Structures are given as C-alpha cells and as structure tokens.
C-alpha cells in the first residue's frame, strides 16, 4: 500500500535534531573534581553540610557499589560507561536565599520550559487557581527554590529539598530513607545512594489531604554531570498526595548519566499518586548523544488499605531503564502503573513495573502503551508476583505496542508468578501497527498525515492520559505529537 | 410438619443481615408466591435455602421433609429434593448440557440410593422433556447455557426441574427477562410439574407471572421477613396498590 511506503519514507527523513528544549544556560557552576572515589563522596557530603551518619551511609553504599556489576539483562545497548569520566556534583555558584535572588538566567530557562517558578507566575499559569502547584525545581544538583512552602507548612506538610530534610528532619529521613530501596538494591540505586546530589522530600502528616499538587522539575544542564536525584515521599496514615515530576535537559553531544532513586511510603489508608513526564534529550538523528536514564522508583504500600499509583509519560532519553514498582505489603492495598513510552530515532526504552503482592486482598492494575518509531527499541518488562500468603490477590495487565515503520522493535517481557491458588491474574498484550484503514479514514476526512497519526496515537494512549493530572495531560499530549514529529506520513 | 418448614430464619452476607426472622410453611401440593419490593431479601432466601457460599445463617431452622437443610452442602440439599430455578442461570463453557444433565441426575439418584439411569433411558427421557419445552438437540449439545438467549436459559432451568423431579422447587424471578410467549412456555412447563407430592415457591416482583402460575398462597416479604400472607387475591391487590406501603417502616 502506498501509505506504508510513505510511512517508511517519513521514518527515514526523521529529524529528531529539533529538540525543543536544547539550549544551554550559561551560568558559572561549582563542580566536584571529575571522577568517583571516597573523596568525591566526602566532598558532596561536606558541600551539603551533612551530618556524620549520612556520610557513613553514603560511604557504605560506595563501598558496596565497588563490588557490584552493571546489570545487563535489559534490552538496551550502549558503550561501556566510564564512571570516572563524570562530574558527580555541580551547583550554581550563586546560592539564592529567596526567589528574588535567583539567577535571572535560570528563571529565563524555566520560562522557556514553561515552569511557573515564581508564585505569581505559578498562579497565572494555572487554569484553576484553587489547585495551585508547588514547584521544587532542581537545577542540576541543587534544589534552587521551593515555592508555596509557607502555605504547605500550615497544613503540616513538609515539602523541601532532600538536603534540607537531612538537616531539618533527620528523624524522618533516618526512618524512611533507604527503607524502600535498600542500599544495595541494584547497581544504579547503590551509586545514587553514594553520590545523590539533591531531590525532593515530602511528608504528609496523618489525615492530611495535601492541598495542592506537588511538582518538581529536573533539568540536566552542566556538561558531563551525572545527575543523581533522591526523592522520598511519605504519606502518613490517611494522608493523600499527588506529586508531579517533569524533566527536560538541554541538548548535549555527550551521553549524560542520570540515576535517580524515588522512594514512596504509604502508611495505613494513605494514597500517593506519582506522575512523571520525561522528555530528556533523546540524542540526534544519528543516535549521538542523549541521556542515559537508569532510574529506580519504588513504592511501598506499607499500611493496610493504602494505594500507590504511578503514571508515566516517557518520551525522552537515549536510554530509559525504569521500572516504577509497588510492594503491596498492607492488606487490601492497591498498586497501579499507567505508562506511555514513546521511542523514536535511536532511542532505547526498557521500562515496566513490578507488582509484588504480599498482603491479603491486594490488587494491582497495569496499563502500558508502547509506541516505537524510527530505529528505536521499545520493551515492556513487567513482573507480577503473588506470594504464598497473599490470598485473593488480583492483577489485571494490559500492554499494547504500536509500531510505526519497519526499522523499530517492540517487545513484551512479562513475568507472571502466582504462588497462591486464590490469585486471579489476567494478562493480555498485543502488538500491531497503526491501522492503514484508520489512517486512510482520517486522511479522507482532511487531516494531514501527521495530524492523523497524532490523533490515532492519542487515542491509543487515552487510557493512560486520563490518569494524569489535568496540567500534565495537556503537556503530555503535546509532547506525544512532538516526539513523533516527522516519524510518520 | 410441612414439607418445607422455615422457622425464624436469620441470615447475613458480609455481616449485613438480610433475613431477619423469616418463617414459612409450605405443604406438599401447594404453590406459594413470595412477592416484595426490590431488596426485601427474596433472592437471598432462595440462596440461603439452596446453600450458596458467602451467606451465613445466624439463627433459625429450615427443613425439607424433616431433613435439616442448613446442615447440608448444596449438592446434598439438591439430593434431598430442593431445586432452585436461578434468576440468572450461569454459563458453564465446555460442559455439554447433556453431560451436565446426566451427571446431575445420576449424582442425585446415587445419593438417594437409586440406580443410575441407563444411557438409552436417559436420552429418551431428556428428548421427550426437552421437546415439550421447545429445547432443540443442538442446545443440548452446547455448553450449559452458553450462547442461550434469556428465554432459552429459563427453559433450560425448567427442563432440569422436570428431569430432577424435586420435592420443593423455588423459582427465583423466573419471569424476568421473558417476553410473553416465552413466559407462556415456561409457565406451562412449570404447571405441568405441579403435583400433590410437590411444593413450589414462586418468587416474583410482578403479579404478571401469577396469572400463568396461579398460587394457592401469596406472601409479602419486606425487610427480610414475611409481613403479610393471604390467598391469590393478595397479588391482585398488590398489583393495584404497588409496594409503596412497604417503602417505609410504617408498613
């Protein structure tokens, strides 16, 4: 069919160079010496005025990391990473004391990204002022500013950088940090534990429904700086929080390493909703450059009747290695994973989730939509396990893949393990191409090929988009179109 | 003692009490209708009597011909002579209707110490009874209720009743989802099974069914108990006045 050829041509003419956020902010920054050693770890810890116990924790992780090997099971390939060739810490030299003192360059950067950093702008930028977003913006390694802090404090909500939390709320940090992702969980998480630079900390007290969506925006700017955020969110009994994470990085030729760890703890009757839009630089049309994104995200439904819901829209990075998971420990707890993963150009995505059913009457739901275009590889990798004592566990999994063009690959690797007879698991997966009939129908009604594909793809991912908070859904929808630009006829 | 004797029956599901001290006596040869508004516990009564899991009897007794029903597993209740025509008969894919009927009939005969029917005898009986109810051979070959229309499912229930020859049959909303022609076929099937040795309990929301299956007694159920009893004229009265009177505690 002609449309097939057209699609192929479009894929060939793929132009991923037009990365919208590929600009570099020119500000001076302070870096740790290049490379990784105990000294680097001590340098980072000292820079952040950390207490001794935190330094010891980092050093312990570093020593364990030295004995570990890079995992190779994921379907991603890249040249061997020289971990000594990175800077592990960078911070803007001018440290702001208040929003007014923030480097105008940074503010301008955020403006380009459309992040409403200043409170006034934040309010103006949101359709519904009664649901403002508090933004904790991470600029490279230091949390530059936290907005709405005072208002959140009234409710007893703690929303600050993890560095600040280590200093100001050591008891909470000691109790929960590393309790979901242990020090030696995996190669990248251990590395993160040793050198994490900054990240967000959220604590929602008992019975509090967080009055606003919390948001953080990551941005990798400095050349060859690995970015190692560490995020910890705790919802105490009966609490609720919705957290939004967005990422953009300027265009760089070198591959940039990113290894974040996110830990969520939901106590009895608590609920955490964590949404991510990731559109880091994916590399150019020849597969040069782009972010290496090795992320460990895990939620622990620690209390009965707790719920953790992950929603992700992954459109960026050269390599994505990411499995936001739920440990369903409490009885009647629920885990959810909604994912859209789009790969184009030479991107490689290996992403999915783990749902570990430990408690009684636990349920999980997985909806994954993978879209592969260009020469990309897109893998869903998931695990659903019901342990011996997890009676009446329920899982429903649906993972669909869509292929655009004949040079890409879409793969599905689910592990479904039931060790309890009362488990009821249903898993279904499909892989197909964009229907030529649907395309033709749209074209016949006057849509351009690009609009038609965007329309069809948006329909394909609708179930997941609906899970995103309104503010993100709109951005995500735009990103999907942008990500697939030029990939189709 | 009556054939079916229910005394002060209390039952709950998931700790919610639905039957709250229901008593009813049904003698052989009689047809009783139980009417009542939605949520009054009519279907619960049929499930509790037939032994559906998840329903817990907290108090009271129910006997069939002197046999304590509540002590028995569902299959033993059936063997004791209790039959429930389901409001929503389930589909059992992969189990041919014919196999199902024979397995059920022989299991009950065995439980009662009778000989199993020979295959030719069984086939002859089924064919004869199925023909009366307009059930085709094709339907008998298919999985139980699989791909059957609403009317076909109900007819299949009556066929099972005809075959299993229970002492007490409970018909749970047998008229629901039936058009008038299907209702006639089903009612004729039921009426042909009326006998001096058999009792029937017809559960229905509407009087319509009782034009076709004329009861000897009518009971009104409300909030888990029988709140009124009378002859067949009571059904007509309800038809005229509705259940409005039972919408409130004042009733």
């Amino acid at each position, binding site marked *: 069919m002609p449309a*097939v050829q057209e699609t192929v041509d479009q894929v060939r003419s793929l132009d991923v160079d037009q990365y919208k956020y590929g600009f570099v902010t020119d500000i001076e920054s302070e870096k740790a010496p290049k490379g990784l050693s105990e000294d680097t770890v001590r340098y980072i810890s000292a820079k952040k005025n950390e207490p001794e116990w935190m330094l010891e924790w980092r050093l312990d992780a570093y020593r364990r990391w030295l004995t570990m*090997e890079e995992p*190779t*099971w994921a379907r991603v390939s890249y040249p061997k990473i020289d971990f000594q060739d990175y800077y592990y810490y960078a911070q803007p030299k001018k440290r702001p004391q208040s929003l007014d003192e923030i480097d105008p360059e940074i503010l301008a950067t955020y403006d380009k990204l459309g992040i409403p950093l200043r409170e006034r702008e934040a309010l103006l930028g949101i359709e519904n002022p009664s649901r403002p977003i508090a933004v904790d913006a991470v600029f490279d390694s230091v949390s530059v500013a936290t907005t709405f802090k005072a208002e959140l404090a009234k409710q007893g909500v703690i929303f600050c950088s993890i560095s600040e939390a280590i200093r100001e709320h050591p008891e909470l940090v000691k109790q929960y940090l590393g309790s979901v992702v242990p020090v030696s969980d995996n190669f990248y998480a251990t590395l993160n534990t040793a050198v994490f630079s900054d990240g967000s900390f959220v604590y929602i007290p008992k019975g509090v429904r967080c009055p606003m969506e919390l948001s953080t925006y990551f941005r990798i700017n400095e050349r060859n700086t690995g970015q190692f955020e560490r995020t910890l969110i705790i919802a105490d009994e009966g609490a609720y929080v919705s957290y939004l994470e967005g990422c953009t990085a300027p265009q760089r030729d070198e591959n940039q390493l990113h290894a974040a760890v996110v830990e969520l703890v939901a106590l009895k009757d608590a609920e955490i909703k964590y949404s991510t839009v990731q559109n880091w630089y994916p590399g150019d049309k020849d597969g040069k450059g782009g972010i290496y994104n090795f992320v460990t995200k895990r939620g622990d439904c620690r209390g009965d009747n707790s719920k953790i819901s992950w929603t992700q829209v992954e459109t960026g990075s050269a390599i994505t290695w990411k499995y936001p998971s739920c440990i369903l420990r409490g009885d009647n707890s629920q885990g959810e994973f909604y994912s859209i993963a789009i790969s184009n150009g030479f991107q490689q995505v290996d992403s999915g989730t783990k749902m570990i059913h430990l408690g009684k009457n636990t349920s999980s739901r997985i909806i994954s939509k993978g879209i592969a275009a260009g020469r990309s590889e897109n893998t869903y990798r998931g695990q659903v396990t019901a342990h011996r004592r997890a009676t009446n566990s329920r899982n429903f999994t649906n993972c669909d*893949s869509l*292929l*655009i*063009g*004949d*040079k*890409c*690959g879409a*793969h*599905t*690797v*689910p*592990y*479904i*393990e*039931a*060790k*309890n*007879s*009362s*488990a*009821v*698991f*249903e*898993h*279904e*997966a*499909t*892989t*197909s*191409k964009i229907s030529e009939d649907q395309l033709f129908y749209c074209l016949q009604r006057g849509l351009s090929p690009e609009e038609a594909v965007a329309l069809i793809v948006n329909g394909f991912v609708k179930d997941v988009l609906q899970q995103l908070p309104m503010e993100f859904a709109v951005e995500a929808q735009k990103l999907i179109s942008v990500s697939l630009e030029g990939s189709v006829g | 003692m009556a054939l079916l004797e229910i005394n002060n029956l209390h039952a709950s599901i998931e700790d919610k009490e639905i039957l709250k001290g229901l008593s009813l006596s049904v003698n052989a040869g009689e047809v009783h209708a139980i009417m009542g508004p939605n949520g009054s516990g009519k279907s619960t009564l049929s499930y509790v009597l037939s*032994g*559906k*899991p998840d329903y817990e009897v907290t108090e009271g007794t129910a006997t069939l011909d002197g046999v304590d029903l509540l002590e028995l*597993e*569902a*299959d*033993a*209740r*059936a063997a004791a002579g209790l039959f429930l025509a*389901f409001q929503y008969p*389930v589909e*059992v*894919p*992969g*189990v041919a209707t014919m*196999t*199902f009927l024979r*397995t*059920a*009939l022989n*299991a*009950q005969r065995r*439980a009662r110490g009778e000989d199993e029917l020979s295959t030719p005898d069984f086939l002859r009986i089924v064919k004869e009874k199925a023909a009366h109810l307009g059930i085709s051979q094709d339907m008998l070959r298919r*999985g139980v209720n699989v791909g059957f229309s609403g009317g076909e499912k109900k007819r299949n229930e009556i066929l099972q009743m005809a075959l*299993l020859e229970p002492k007490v049959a409970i018909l749970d909303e047998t008229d629901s989802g039936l058009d008038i022609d299907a209702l006639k076929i089903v009612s004729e099937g039921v009426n042909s099974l009326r006998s001096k040795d058999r009792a029937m309990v017809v559960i229905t929301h509407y009087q319509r069914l009782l034009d076709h299956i004329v009861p000897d007694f009518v009971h009104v159920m409300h909030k888990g108990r029988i709140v009124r009893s009378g002859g067949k004229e009571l059904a007509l009265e309800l038809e005229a006045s509705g259940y409005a009177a039972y919408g409130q505690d004042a009733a």
Partner: protein
Amino acid sequence: MNVVTQIRTAAEQALGIAVEQRTAAAEAGRIGELRRAAATAFAANGLPHRRVEEWKYTDLRALQREAAPLAGTPDAAAVAAASADVMSIEGAPRILFVNGTLVGSASDLALGAGITVEPLDAALRGPLADRVGALAPQRYDGPLALNTVFLGSGLVVRVAAGAKIETPLHIANVFTGAAASTYGRVVLVVEEGAEVTLVESFQGPDGVAYQTNSALELFVGDEAHADYIRVQEEGDAALHLATLMTEIGRNAQLHTFSFTSGAKASRISLYGRFGGQHSQAGLNGVNLLKNKQHADVTLLLDHAVPHCESRELFKSVLADESHGVFQGKIVVHPDAQKTDGRMMSRALLLGETAEMDNKPELEIFADDVQCGHGATVGDLDETLLFYLKARGIPQKEAEALLVQAFVGEALELLENETLREFLIARAAAWLVRRAG
C-alpha cells in the same frame, strides 16, 4: 565480563566424566563432530540453572541431583514387562523402545507405502544423516547437548513426497527396571506435500528415579502437513527432559500437542521456525499436575519469513503443591511482515500452594503484524461450582466436570478424532485417579 566460578554439582561432575568417556575415542564423520561440539559446550556450561534466563523457573542443577547411569540393553523379561504395560492407540502401528533401545520384535516396522523408518544408528550412515542435529538452536541447550553426546538409539522416519499417511504412527517409550538414564532421538522428515501424524508416548514405573532425555527433529516440507502428539506419563519419580525442534516449509501446516501428566519434574523446550511463507503452526498442550510435580513448557517460535500464522494454547491444571511453568516467546524478524501470532496460557490452581509462573514474550521487529499473548491464573469459579452443586452434583464431581471443560478447550483442537478421544480419556483417568 562476568567471571563466574563454575561450581559443579555432583550430577554435573558425574555427567562431565560420562561425557568425556563417551567422546574419548576419535569418531569420524558428522556425528563425531556433533558429539565433540556438544561435549565442549557441556564442559563450558554444564546443567542450566536459575540464573540462565530460559531456565529461571526450572533449575536443573537443583532438580537433577544425580546422574543416573546409562541404561543398558533390556533383557527379555524387561521387554515382556514393558510390552504388557505399554499404551496403545486404536488402529495405530506401534514402534516400541524399552529403556531407550528399539525392540524390533515388538514393533511394526513395515509401515506400507510412503513411510519408512530406520534406526538412528543406521540412518547416520545414510542419506538423511545430515538432518540429525540440523535444527539445533544457536544458543546452548544443556539437555540437548547431553542428548547429542549420548546420541545412539532413535529413529529416523521419512514420509515420501506426496504421501498421505492416514493412520497415526505411534512411537512408545517405556522404561522399566532400576533407575537409569536414556537418551533418544527421533528425526521426522515430512517431504513436500506429505501428510503424517506421529504420536510419541513416555511411560515408566512410579517410585524409580529414572531419567528420560528425548529429542525430536521435525522437518515439515513445503505444502506438507504434520501432526505431532506427545503423551508424557512417566513414573512419579522420573525426570523428563525433552527438546523439540522444528522447521516449517512453505504453505505447510504443523500441529503439535503436548499432554503432560507424568514425571516428578519435566521440561519441554520447543524451538520452532517458519522457513517458508504462508504456513501455519498450532502448538498446544495440557499439563495435569499434582503432588509436588513440576512441569515446564518453554517455547521459542521464530517467524523468520512473512505471512505465517501461529497459535499456541496451553492449559495447566495444578493440584496440591505442583508447579507449572509456561514460557513462550514469539519472535518476529524484520522482514516477517503480515505475521499473525497469538499465544495463550491458562492455569487453574486447585491446590492452595500450587504455583504457576507464566512468561509470555513478544519480540517484534516488523511493523505490519498482529501479535498478542495472554496469560491467566485463577481457581475454579465459585459461581459455577455452586450452580453444579445446586443441581446435586457433589463437590469433587463438579470440580472434575469443570476441570475437564477447562482442558477440553485445548483438547478440542486435536483434529484427529481417535487421538482426541484418546487424550480426553487420559485426562478423565487422571481426574479419577486424583479424586480417588
């Protein structure tokens, strides 16, 4: 990069010695080469274990604690005992192997026009010799390596071009006597336009820890139609390892059915490859497990060419503490457009501590495809059970009816009525044994 110190289990050490002994003498020809290559591969890799992805759920190092000695030639008494117990299929000529040795006197070797059988050792000197080992997968497969090293007994079956063989051929493998290991291989060559049905059965005594290692190489020629049914009813202490390899030609059809109710632990590795366009494959099976039985079905289906269709349906019934594994991978190569693949694994957990592990995979490099897989795990539907019980059917009988209906969906896929009824009866017998 990964320098892993090989820790050899006792069984691996014993097997290693046996492998060395078997390949010590210089052996000429193709079979010598195959044997030596397999021996080298085994020496390097040993028995597969749980760190090997394909064996994640079936740790052969743990399951095969001992290397049973190679079975000797059975004596007359053994043959008599085996002949008495062997299963038979109505109307099907039967070839009998006892402890891995072909018993010519108890076999139907003259099969009529269009189909010839030849003992493997003889065939290795004939024109079909190069077919042996031709379908071996690229990656290391431990049991297949051992099968190749100890290759000796077996059968080469050739169905001549255009021959339509109406009656199924039955190759019966019976084990008898004290614990030992057998290595058997069948090569089935279905030439262009030919049709044939092959049944392989495996039986043995309970309580004897014997080991069966069986391999099949199945060549489905262009326009050919092959059916392969395997009935595995080994004794309850046996270890059964099977490797099925097949290549399907153009416009061809292959149907396989695997019925497993025997052995303490079993593993079937199925490697299928479409080599010609417009072909169809249906790979189906039923596993009926109880006590602490373990059964693993792992299949890899390569859609190497366009316009092929594959269907897989596996049903597992897991009673008591049994453990079922299904791993299925459909690979669609870059040029294999218009591939249509559907895979389904359904498991019914009857035992409270029964376990099912499903890993259905899709690996797709072509865009114009329709592929899907599904996996379900659950216990018997309470609503259905109640309906049956409300009709007077006791619990056990109601369960049996529902289980039979559950596996029936797969068994109904068997086109040959005799074989379908044969397996339905074996499933029913299993249910009776379980209830009793």
